[in-house]
Each structure stands twice: as C-alpha cells, then as structure tokens.
C-alpha cells in the first residue's frame, strides 16, 4: 500500500508535504526535534497496514500500562525515514516562505485531518480523518492543503472530555470518532514518544473510553472492563468488532441416535450446507447455509442433532463423563450440554439436570426426551441446595454458571448497556455460592471421579479466575488440566491481582481469536471431603498424626519413639510450610492477615463482653453506650468491606440498595375505609389535629 501511495502522490504535493514537515521540524523547540520525525514515521508505519489486522509493533505494546517496551519502539522507524529525508532536502527551499503563517497553526491545529490526496491513496483510515476540520482557521487554499498534509503526519492532539461529550451529544460522526479512536490508540501504543506532554495517560484513556462507548454502543463500565482485559488497543478493537458479528450456526450430532457422517449426508440431502466444525470435536457440524429452517427439519425433530454453539461442547469434553457415573449438571437449561453428557455416558448411570428457572426446565425436558436421553432426572432446584440434598453424592459436576454474558454479546446486544458493576457483583456472588455448593456435593473418594468443571460464557475476570481462586482458597481441591487442545491460558495475574499459579490450567476463549463465543473453562479435582481449605485439611491431618504418634509413644518406650515422632512432625511441618508458601496467592496472605485482625478484634470484643457482664449489674455503667458504639463501628466496617468488594476479594456480600420509602399517609387506611364520607372527613380532621 505504501508504494502505491507514493506513486500516486503528485510531485508538487510531495514537495509541499515534505517541505512542510521539514519546516515544522525546524520550528519546533529543539528538544522535540528528533522526536517529531520519529513520531511521524511511526504513525506512517502504523497506518500502512491497518488492513492486515494490526501492525506488529503496536500489537506488542500494552496501551494502558506504562511499559518497558516503549523505549524499543522509538528505534523502529529509522529505515523509512531515509527515503523521505531525501525529498525533504530537495524541497526545503521552496517552502520556507510559508513557514511563518503555518507555524501558528500547529499550536491549535487538531491535526487529525489528512490531505485528500493522501487520504485517497492510503485508503480507508485516512478517509475518515476529516474530523475537527472545522476547527482549522480558514487559510488560503494552498496553505490549507499544505497544512493538512503536515497535520496528517503530525502529533495527534487530544480534545478535552467536555469537547467530546458535547460532540457526541450533538451529532457524533462515526468517521471522526473512529479516526480519533485509532489516533488515541496509536498514541497510547508508544506513549512516551507520542504523547502530548501536557496531557496525562488518564486524559487519553478517558477520551478513548468515551469514543468507544459511542462507537460500539457499550456503557462505560463494560468498556473499562474490556480495556483492562485487552490492554492492547488493537486487540480490543478486534474483540469489540467480533462482538457485533454473529458466529456460525453449529450443531452437535447426537451420538445416541446417529453417526455424524450419516447425519451430514442426510442434511445435505435436505439442502443444508454442512461441514465438520473443527478438528478437536467429533460431533460438531457447522452449517454454512440452509434452505430449510435448521431447527425444524425431520432430523431435528427425530433428535438426530441439537443446535448449540461450539463453545458449549468444551466444558463437557473437559468433564469427560464416564458411563455409569453419577453426574450433575447444575444449570442445565436448555439441555444442550446435558444431552451431550448423556451421550458420552451412553445413557447409563444417573444424570441430574437441574435448573433454577422453571420455564427453562421445560425446554430441558423436551430436549432430553427428543434426544433420547433416558438416564436423566430433571429437577427445578436452587443449585445451592444440592450440597444439602446429596452431600458428597456425585462423581462429576458441571457448573455452567449464570453469568453476565459478556462473551455472547452478539446474541444479546442488550448486554452492552444493561450490565453495570452491581449486576456483575450479583453474578459473581451467586457464582461463588454455587461453586461452593457444587464442590460440597462432589465426592472426593469416588473411584474415577471427583471432578468439577466450572464454565461461564463471560470474559470478565471477576466471574472467572476470581471465582476459581476463591474456591481454591475455601476448599481442599486443585485445578487439573482440562484436556482441551485449544484456548488461551487463564490469567494468573491480572492488573494488581495475583491468583494461584495453577490458574494457568484454566482455559479462556475469545470470539476474535477462536471464532467461538467468549468462554471460560476450569476443571477441579476434589482432594478431600472436608469443608475447609487445604490449610485446614493439613492442620487436621497433622493433629491426627500427632495424636497417633503420641498414642504410640505412650504405648511403647518413650526414648525410641520420641525420635520417630519428632521426625514425623518435622517432616509434616516442612510439607505444610511448602504448601503454604508456594501456591497460596498473595491475597490469601492478606486474608489471613485480615482474619488475624478479625480474631484480634473478636478477642477484644470478648474481653469487653466480659467486662460488660461484670459491669452489667451496676447502674449507669455505660455498658449500653459502649455496646452501641461497638455495633456502629462493626456496621461501618462491614459497609466499608462491601463497598470495597470489586469482585476479587472473597467477602461475597452484595450491597443492598435502599428501597425508596413508599408514600405514607398520616391517616390510617383502615380509618378511611371504615365508613361514610362525612365521618371520614371528621375523623381526618381529628387525626390531623392530633398529629399537629
């Protein structure tokens, strides 16, 4: 593209352009002199390949963090610089006349604008660039053109938030906004070199957030979340674009009734264009186009296939149910994954399909019967109850938790605007309850089981890694390999949060990378049935062993066994320490500290309680006052903790919204209803007088 563009640009223009740039360089203060050239070049390079996805250099850079890489980036553009320098020298003289006028402009020029000629050559992106032209002072035509040329190469100048808000309110032009997004992203790509020294990174980010919100129609909360998730601006844009495009329709052949090959043959005869979906699945088919409705063919009705996204095959493959297992699907509706599990179990064993929503349970019943599943029990319970109904009663559990749905935005565009922090908080609180319940319902001692698969169709870390990490802290279990060949490893560190290192065993899926819905899969193996975490289990074991050792010591000679006991004990201690040091994340330590503090507090309270009890007998001892004070302090601490909860700490309490008080009349309703108008009037008078 670059070559083409060079050819097309007329010589005269080139002259102006390069001369202009040169002049510009001369005029700029000495400390920025070299920088400008470099910047210009970088910008150019970036713009050259917008269609092949994104420039490699930019890809590497994390936009939203100050990066070490920034220094490397400055070196990049030198090669290209050479070509233009030649021209520049040639045309330098011609253009020195126009310098003075144009210099002023650089200050307030918004520099988005690119020249028409240039734009037409460089295609797409430049066309969008006419933005903010109105802000240019009106100059003579030639000058203007010149200015535009220079501007295109120049540093992007950031409008203020207020300006942007006003602009978005008035008439947001898609092209202007899009151009500004790409400009800001470029600046952020090499922030040190390209920034406007007066503006902070936050200013740039604020502008970018606003623009992305208006461009793609998200609310600010989600956009900031996504920006944190994809620090690379290019990837962020890809992700947002992918959210607007539908995924291909995929179906799963029901291996209980038919083979995939036969099914494909039948469907092709019906006029559908199908193909095996991916290498990693033996039952998935992708439907390119179809002359008949995919959900109403006789094959569909006969239960030969199920319409479901490729992503929903993944958790079931990770679960790998065996024939004869006791399996629970906690959030089953509409039954796609459940029937897949049944197919893998070959209709043997027991499969519980649970869903909280009664209406959606009907879909489960219908689908399971249609697909010929006979080993299923469909129930309509709250998932949290399974740990009470059947504690330790399952070999495998699939928890496809209810989530904010940020991975499947293409299916439901309302997600873009409807989700806020409180929604997400509610979701992850619910997920934590469910995952704890699921873990308690699992049997650690089952011969080939004890596995829990947790999956969501969300990409937010709060609903995925944070929940998994929470479970690792609370229960004695470990993450195991999911056995899935594709996917990106989960985060072990995200922003300033550090998770358990084994979280790299979880898998994430993104629409723009894998062309399936955004998804998350984690597989646990339960290690013991105790309802405590690893720490507690270890402690219990140690106590047990100590007891045993002591008994032994009591029984036999003290001297001999004493040594052995010490050995055992010391060995144990080491183990425990290692375990604690290595895998427990930072947060745990913090928690422990908190716990300690709490304990300390409790102790204090206990003490004071004792005092209180003592002092209760005395009149006016101030005990009540103290108690009130203490309660208030407690309440405050609780509220503070709730306010802090951003999805990563393990409190799991949801803020309660204060209900608006309903209007209350001063006159009781009953009094009004009792009798005739006249008496009511009198009564009202009386009541009002009283109340006065």
């Amino acid at each position, binding site marked *: 593209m670059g070559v083409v563009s060079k050819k097309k640009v007329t010589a005269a223009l080139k002259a102006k352009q390069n001369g202009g740039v040169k002049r510009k360089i001369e005029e700029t203060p000495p400390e920025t002199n070299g920088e400008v050239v470099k910047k210009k070049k970088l910008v150019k390079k970036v713009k050259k390949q917008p269609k092949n996805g994104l420039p490699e250099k930019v890809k590497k850079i994390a936009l939203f963090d100050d990066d070490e890489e920034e220094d490397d980036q400055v070196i990049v553009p030198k090669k290209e610089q050479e070509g233009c320098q030649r021209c520049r020298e040639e045309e330098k003289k011609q253009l020195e006349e126009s310098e003075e006028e144009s210099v002023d402009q650089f200050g307030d020029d918004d520099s988005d604008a690119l020249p028409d000629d240039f734009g037409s050559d460089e295609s797409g992106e430049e066309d969008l660039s006419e933005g903010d032209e109105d802000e240019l002072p009106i100059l003579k035509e030639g000058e203007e053109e010149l200015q535009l040329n220079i501007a295109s190469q120049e540093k992007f100048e950031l409008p203020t938030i207020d300006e942007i808000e006003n602009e978005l309110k008035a008439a947001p032009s898609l092209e202007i906004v899009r151009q500004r997004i790409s400009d800001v992203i470029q600046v952020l790509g090499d922030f040190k070199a390209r920034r406007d020294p007066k503006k902070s990174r936050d200013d740039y980010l604020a502008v970018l957030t606003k623009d992305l919100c208006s461009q793609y129609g998200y609310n600010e909360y989600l956009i900031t979340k996504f920006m944190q998730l994809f620090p690379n601006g290019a990837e962020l844009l890809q992700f947002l674009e992918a959210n607007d495009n539908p995924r291909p329709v995929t179906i799963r052949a029901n291996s209980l009734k038919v083979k995939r090959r036969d099914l494909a043959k039948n469907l092709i005869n019906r006029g559908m264009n199908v193909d095996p979906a991916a290498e990693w699945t033996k039952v998935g088919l992708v439907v390119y186009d179809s002359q008949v409705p995919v959900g109403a063919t006789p094959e569909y009705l006969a239960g030969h296939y199920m319409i479901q996204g490729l992503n929903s095959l993944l958790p079931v493959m990770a679960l790998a149910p065996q024939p004869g297992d006791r399996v629970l699907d906690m959030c089953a509706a509409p039954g796609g994954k459940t029937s897949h599990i049944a197919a893998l179990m070959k209709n043997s064993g027991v499969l519980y399909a649970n869903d909280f929503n009664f209406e959606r349970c009907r879909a489960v*019943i219908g689908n399971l019967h249609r697909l010929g599943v006979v080993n*299923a029990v*469909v129930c309509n319970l709250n998932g949290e109850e399974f740990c009470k109904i059947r504690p330790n009663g399952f070999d495998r559990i699939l928890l496809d938790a209810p989530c904010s749905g940020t991975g499947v935005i293409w299916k439901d565009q309302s997600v873009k605007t409807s989700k806020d922090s409180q929604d997400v908080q509610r979701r992850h609180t619910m997920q934590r309850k469910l995952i704890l319940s699921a873990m308690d319902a699992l049997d650690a001692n089952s011969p080939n089981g004890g596995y829990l698969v947790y999956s969501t169709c969300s990409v937010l870390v709060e609903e995925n890694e944070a929940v998994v990490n929470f479970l690792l802290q609370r229960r004695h279990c470990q993450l195991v390999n999911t056995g899935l060949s594709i996917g990106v490893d989960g985060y072990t560190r995200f922003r300033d949060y550090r998770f358990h290192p084994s979280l790299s065993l979880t898998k994430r899926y993104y629409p723009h990378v894998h062309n399936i819905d955004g998804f998350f899969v984690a597989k646990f193996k339960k290690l013991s049935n105790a309802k405590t975490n690893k720490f507690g289990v270890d402690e219990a074991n140690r106590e047990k062993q100590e007891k045993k050792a002591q008994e032994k010591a009591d029984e036999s000679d003290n001297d001999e066994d004493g040594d052995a006991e010490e050995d055992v004990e010391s060995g144990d201690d080491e183990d425990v320490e290692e375990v604690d040091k290595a895998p427990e994340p930072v947060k745990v330590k913090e928690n422990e500290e908190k716990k300690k503090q709490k304990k300390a507090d409790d102790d204090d309270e206990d003490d004071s309680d004792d005092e209180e009890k003592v002092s209760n007998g005395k009149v006016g001892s101030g005990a009540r006052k103290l108690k009130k004070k203490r309660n208030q302090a407690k309440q405050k601490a609780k509220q503070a903790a709730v306010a802090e909860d951003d999805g990563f700490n393990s409190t799991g309490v949801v803020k309660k919204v204060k209900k608006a008080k309903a209007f209350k009349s001063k006159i009781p309703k009953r009094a009004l209803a009792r009798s005739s108008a006249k008496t009511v009037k009198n009564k009202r008078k009386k009541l009002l007088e009283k109340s006065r």
Partner: protein
Amino acid sequence: MRPLTDEETEKVFTKLASFIGDNVSMLIDRSDADYCFRNHKERVYYASENLMRQAACIAREPLLSFGTCIGKFTKTKKFHLHITALDYLAPYAKYRVWLKPNAEQQFLYGNNVLKSGVARMTEGTPTHSGIVVLSMSDVPIGFGVAAKGTMDSKRADPTAIIVLHQCDLGEYLRNESTL
C-alpha cells in the same frame, strides 16, 4: 412418585398393548436392568429401578421428570400416550405405516394421514388398532390409530383418512411446555 395402582396399570398396559401387543412384557422383563413404571403428578414415567431410587431423593415439587415420560392420566382418569413414548413403541410396534415425503410434512404438522400419502402399510392391520408412523427412511415420526384396516384402505379413495393422528414429532416444538 408412587407405583401405579392396579387400575392405572391396566389402563396403561392396554394402551401400550394396542401398539406393541405382547411385547409389553419386553418393557418389564429387560435383561440389562429392572425397569418400572411410576406415577408422578399424574404422569407415568418409565425408568430403571436405580434411576427411580436416585430421583426419589428430590422432593415432589421440584422433581419434574425422570427417565422417560410415557404419558399422562387426564382429569377423567383416561390414559394418554405422549410423543415421548415413541422411543419404546417404535421398535416393538406390531403395525406400521410408511409415509411419502410430502405427506410426512403434513403429518408432522398434526394432520391425519390420507390414503394418498401412504406409501406402505403392514399387512393385516385391523381397524382401530394403534399404528406407528414412519418416514420412508425408516425414522419413526409419530403414531396414531388406524381408521381403516389394510384391506379397507386398499379400496378407499385417495382422500380417505387412513390413520387418525395422535402424536407426532412436531409436538416437541408445538407443545414443548406441556411435555
């Protein structure tokens, strides 16, 4: 969930027998496991003994289904088969009828089968016996009652009704909420 009473058992079995005759016994004496019929909220479920036991740990209200739903008792205590029973009726069925492709579509929309749509029919089907409807590729698509026996239907004119519609696969879409 409770076992069927004698009266209920009789009704269920006569209904099943009209479709699969003596093969009813095959449903009960199975080689792989003990199977049983259970009445749960006036619906009859057919499940293995083991599954039934496991389902019993769920309370009555939230338990929506287990094993296969065969049919239901109406308020007047008549027994109706559901389309979900097709998996057990089709392999043992005594009388079958095969439909032409265009009639197949009609049947799946809930219409009766006309003479013109019948491609093949089991020899010796008596009138008013239960009959399983299959597509030309031998996929069971529903069941009904033979309005005319094989002999009568041969003489009937093309618009005469041969099979009265009872259940078809289309109900999975039409009546999903009442399955």
